[in-house]
Structures are given as C-alpha cells and as structure tokens.
C-alpha cells in the first residue's frame, strides 16, 4: 500500500494487529475503499474512524476521528479529525485516542 495506491485491506490488517499488540478488545471494519476508511470498534461500540486523505496537490495524510453510533445502527463522525503525515504518527494518535493511559516505549540503540 502506498500513499499513491491506497488499500483498505492493508489498513485493516495494520489496525487489527495493533489492537492485539495493545491488548485492546476490539475489531476493525472497512467502510469505504475510496478513500480507504476503516471503523475501529472497541467492545462492539464504534470508537474511531481512520481514513487516508489526498486532496489536490496537498500531501496525503491520515485522518483519525471520533465515531459515534450504536453497535448495530448507523455510524457517524463526531469530532474534527486529527491529521497525521505518516503511519507512525497515525498509530500513535489512534492508540492515544483508544487508550489514553498507555505509555509507548522508546527505541534504544546500544553502544555495543
């Protein structure tokens, strides 16, 4: 998947795996393929929308928005999106939104 060739399946795989890594009980559903958009549900309830956005000549970005709705009904976006330039930022933003108390680690490159 590239910023020029969005693929909603890869986005779904990435975020589903992230929920496992973060030990969050949830799932990821594809919503649209153009633009590639997925819905993250936590414990069955809609929680976040994540989409890839490219408008005109502007650089592409990832958008993360709060979602609202019921477990079985329609889902809408309830807050202005936060935008991230690349995957690492998007993952950090998603995790912070789903698990505000989580603390990420830091890579240490040893000296020997």
């Amino acid at each position: 998947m590239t910023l020029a060739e969005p693929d909603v399946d890869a986005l779904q795989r990435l975020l589903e795996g992230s929920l496992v890594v973060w030990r969050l009980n949830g799932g990821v559903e594809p919503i649209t393929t153009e633009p590639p958009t997925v819905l993250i549900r936590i414990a069955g309830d809609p929680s976040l929308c994540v989409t890839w956005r490219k408008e005109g000549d502007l650089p592409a970005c990832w958008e993360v928005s709060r979602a609202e709705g019921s477990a079985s009904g329609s889902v809408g976006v309830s807050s202005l999106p936060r935008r991230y330039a690349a995957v690492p930022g998007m993952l950090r933003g998603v995790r912070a939104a789903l698990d505000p108390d989580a603390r990420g680690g830091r890579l240490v490159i040893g000296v020997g």
Partner: protein
Amino acid sequence: MSIPVSVITGFLGSGKTTLLSRLLRHPELSETAVVINEFGEVGLDHLLVEASEDSIVELGTGCLCCTIRDDLAMTLGDLLARRDRGEIPQFRRVVIETSGLADPAPILHVLMADAALAERLSLDTVITTVDAVNGLGTLDEHVEAVKQAAVADTLLITKCDLAAAEAARLEARLRTLNPAAEIHSVAHGDLAPERLFSRTAYSIGSRPVEVGRWLEEERRHDATGHAHDVNRHDDRIRAFCLERNEPVSAVAFSLFLETLAEHCGPDLLRVKGIVEIAENPGRPAVVHGVQHVFHPPEWLDDWPGQDRKTRFVFITRDIPEQWVATLLELLDDEARETSARLARRGPTKRQEKLRER
C-alpha cells in the same frame, strides 16, 4: 579488543549453579571472571585460595569469582577498574550467572547499552539451563522461564539422566519456542567449556558465515499442528521469519525499529535480522535486539551467501506476524513515496543557496 561476556540463566533448580560449579573447575576458565549471586551456593570453599571478605576471590584454577551487587553495571565497572589497577588477574572473559527468577532482558540491556561498559565488554552468548525433570511444568507456570529460554543462544537440558523421556519432549517444545538456539543435553553439569564459550553469537560482524546459521529458523510454531493451550505461557510466544525481496529504505528501517520498540517493546523478546538497505546496496546491515534495546547495526562487506533476501527472525509474545509484515510494507512505501514527491518538487530555495555555498 573487548572482553566477551556470557550470561548463564535458567529457572530455580534447573542446574545452573551445578553447571557453573563444574565449569569453574576447568583450567580452560582460568582467565575468566565469574559474577555469581553467592559464593556459598557454588560450593567453592575447597577451591578458594584464601578466605576473604572481599567480593572478589581467586580460585585454585586461576578463575576469579565475584559476587553481584545490586547494580550489575557497578559490579562490572568495579571488576574492570580493579583489573586495570592490577589488583586482580587480567581476566579475558566474564561469565554472569543470573538468579533463577531473573528476566534476562535487563541484564542484556546493561551489556548492550551502557556506554562505559560497552567500550570494554561485549555480549557474547546467552546460555539457558532447563530442567528435564520439571522443565515442561516450569514453562507452563512461569513466564520468566519462557523468557529465559526465548532469548538463549544455547539451551542446556539438564538432569537428562533422571528423565530421558521428558527430556525428548522438552527438547521438542524448546525447538518450537526458540528455533535458532543450539540445544544440548547435560547430566551433572558435565559439558566442555569450549562448547559454550566459543560461539561469539553476538559478535557476528566479523564472522559473516555465521549469519546464515544465526538467522536460521528450523521450525515454525504454526507448523506443529498441536492444539493451543491458553494457559501455557509459551503458546503466546511466537517465533517467525519475515522475508523481503526488495531492499528497505534507510528511513523506513529506522522507523520500523522505532515503531516496534514504541508499541511492543517488552513483547519483542528478540529480533535478529540481515537487511538490504536501498541506499547501501550489497552491504547488508545486521541487526540484533532484545526488547526495545538494539545493538548498533553491523555492516557486512558482502552477503554471507547466495541468498540476498532481507530477513528478520522474531521471537515475540502476543505480536501478530501479519502486523509486523504490514507495518514494514507501509513504512517502506510511505518513505519511497515521500522521497519521490520531494524529488519531483525539486530543491527549495534554501537548499539551492546552501548548494551554491
């Protein structure tokens, strides 16, 4: 030339101390400093040159024994300082015995990341003892035992004389848990030192032929077909290999390691890899990490064999293999797209001015 450091770990009662007691009697270890928990545990009285309240004693074989203090880094630093002052013999190797309940990762981190120690010491190999009689149950009940086995370069199945059938089952389970480790069966700690301490498992830059074997994945857990028992700690442990035909951009490689460390550091039990970096073709980078701490990449002059695929071997806990693969793919694609976009845009005015200078 740095002094190699070997770590001996293993759960309580696994025969770690018995192994060490036997090893200390070998003249081959005469130039070794051994860092242990307590002298009394190892039964050194009859070997002591003289009784001493000092934390460092010299044995009849010439080997040094030092008790570990609260801070491993301080203990090792003190050892080196006393060596430099000529107060103790010029040891050529260090062996550290961990406590039975220890998570070996913090010890490895000290050896990998402490700048002062890294100038003088280099992590050589991790040896883990696992008890044939109780090992299977220990792995079921104690996550520390699973972690000790997962990070080992060499696994020693001890007490084989007492439980031959269990030893075979244990070996099969250990091969699934840590496919790349060497496994030996040992009775009464009887094993020649050269089989343990000549491996330089962590110093592979100077031994490119070892890299292929070092990265070898003999079996994959999913191929065994056995039922998963959620109560078994090692069923959460996965060893898998990630391969790529295409080179990885340098930026993507850095972001990959950073993202792994950020999101799954403690669960990233061990990572080894040989990576073709797009900006440095034909000179692969060799990486090695324990949780969130990585050795600086070592650069080989050439690939060690015909196979020039980028490959990583992961030993992880609760990390989906597909997530790791998708993450690397996305990061590399983003990095390439960004580079291409910047190339199309051309240099900024500021960059042009800098070039003119």
